[in-house]
């Protein structure tokens, strides 16, 4: 778990400092507005050159810079999606326990139905709707062609139901514990009980579960980008880099290596740290 945590800290550092660092290192003299991530620097498919430690890609761009930028994209999208999912999940989960029955029941049945709907289909539908809308609406075209916002929308929609179900189950089990009943008996309002007594109990498990879910979100983003419907070129993402590497696999198989390694280790580390956190925060496992 600590190794996983150390890797994640390094990854954050690498992906947020990396692009800027490579830009200043590789900047040719007398060229403003230079960006190491998107501009071609040299001949394509260079390898074993000291200037580009991981080589260059099919357009002669620095793979190291793109890898770092891809990591940043993955982390930012993952964190945004998990943030939205947490907010929605907390809201719906709390409603699922405390709201009057006529609100509670339909909301939870809808959550169940969302949960049963395969993630990839819902995501595809949303991204498809964005793409379809952009045909008639030129303002949307830039958003769709960049890809970040449709991906965040699609993944947030699929991520919240599992959090909502977890929150609901946890709150339902806390609801009749002595300290909550005591607060109720001393006249605290439902709002006060939920925000001061119940929710603070949940942070540990929510943090742990979010870590594991974050791995799923990053994987989903990479899948979408790999399929060409997530982050679109020229913006780098690990999934997109893998997709390009696959197209050039016959001649340059070494391009597969780095995105594969980064993606696999990141997902492995996140689920590892998440499981470790869950074991730490779950009082039952002590």
């Amino acid at each position: 778990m600590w190794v996983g945590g150390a890797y994640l800290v390094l990854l954050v550092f690498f992906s947020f400092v990396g692009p800027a660092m490579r830009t200043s290192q590789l900047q040719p003299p007398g060229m403003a507005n230079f960006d190491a991530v998107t501009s071609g620097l040299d001949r394509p498919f260079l390898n074993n050159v000291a200037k580009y430690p991981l080589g260059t890609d099919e357009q002669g761009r620095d793979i190291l810079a793109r890898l770092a930028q891809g990591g940043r994209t993955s982390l930012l999208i993952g964190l945004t999606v998990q943030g939205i999912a947490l907010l929605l999940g907390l809201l719906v989960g709390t409603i699922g326990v405390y709201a009057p029955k006529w609100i509670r029941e339909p909301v939870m049945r809808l959550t169940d139905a969302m949960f049963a709907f395969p993630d990839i289909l819902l995501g595809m539908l949303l991204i498809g709707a964005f793409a379809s809308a952009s045909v008639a609406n030129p303002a949307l075209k830039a958003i769709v062609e960049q890809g970040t916002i449709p991906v965040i929308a699609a993944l947030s929609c699929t991520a919240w139901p599992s959090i909502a179900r977890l929150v609901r189950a946890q709150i339902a089990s806390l609801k009749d514990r002595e300290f909550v009943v005591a607060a109720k008996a001393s006249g605290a309002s439902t709002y006060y009980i939920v925000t001061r007594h119940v929710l603070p109990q949940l942070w540990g498990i929510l943090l742990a579960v979010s870590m594991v879910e974050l791995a799923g979100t990053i994987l989903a983003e990479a899948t979408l980008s790999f399929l060409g419907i997530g982050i679109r070129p020229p913006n780098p993402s690990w999934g997109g880099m893998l997709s390009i590497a696959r197209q050039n696999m016959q001649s340059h198989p070494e391009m597969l290596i780095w995105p594969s390694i980064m993606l696999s280790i990141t997902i492995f580390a996140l689920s590892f740290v998440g499981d470790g956190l869950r074991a730490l925060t779950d009082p039952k496992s002590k």
Partner: protein
Amino acid sequence: MEQALPTPSEVPRAPSALPNVLKAIGLRLLFGIFSLVFISFIVFLADELAPGDAADVRAGEKATVAQVEKLRESMGLNRPWPVRYVEFLGKAAKLDFGHSYYGTQREVRDLILEKLPITSLIAFCAIILAAAVGIGLGTIAGIYRTRPPDTAILIISTLGVTVPTFVLAPILVYYFSTVRDILPATWETEMRAPMYMYLLLPVTILAARPSALLTRVTRASMIDTLQQEFIRTAIAKGVPTNRLIFKHALRNAILPVVTVIGTSFGFLLTGSFVLESVFTIPGIGKDGIEAIVMGDMPRIQGIVLVTGFLFVVLNLVVDVLLPLLDPRIREAQV
């Protein structure tokens, strides 16, 4: 003494288990239907909320507002949405999703009917393979708990769960097609080898993750079962090892595994989207991706509805079959 014992007619009879099962199955069916309606509504809504509709697309970018409005009226798109939703449902029940916006503007029904069989074939082979491998390895791991075979299987299954499909696929393709040249890398319309050669890699890769999951579930369930008292009794009775494992332990351990098989259908869907684009298999997944890139709403709607329908129905079948397999669930008040 004997007088105190109640006669058989006085013993309160256990309530028959059957109505409970029927009630549970009925509730499950109801939820299944609810899910289907929900999916259809979401699919309908996706088109509804997106600015721009079929009339915009058909009229083209140069059409004037009045022209589009006229077209919209003739296509019935300006009626209130509940009316159109009911119409949409009626058409969807007949698999009528309209025509594709782009390309040859074929009917979506024909496209789906043409492409679904190959996707289903791959998914079906993969789930069979995953069940065989997962239950087999899981049983072995459960028997050899914490000894070397178990450790080896656990390491492999951890890798199987964490390595994404689209990382595994190019690596295996590179090794088996580019380096060794024994399996074809992509689908060809005129096949140079028997069909199973083309299916071997996609099916194996698709089965990797479900196999790993099933291995872990089978292992846990097997370990749990082997610690039960009836197993100790069976060992004491001198039941032969094979019979003990397959008849006594595995039959009891298999039930959670069946549930996981049910939930893997969702993963198979995702996986087949990836694999079909890696291997250029002309299935429903590759078609779906193309439709999304173009924003071809009727095709997306058709594909999402049909695959969503299959997903719900398959899960329903698993959930309904489970109580029939397991007398404990059958008799518990579900």
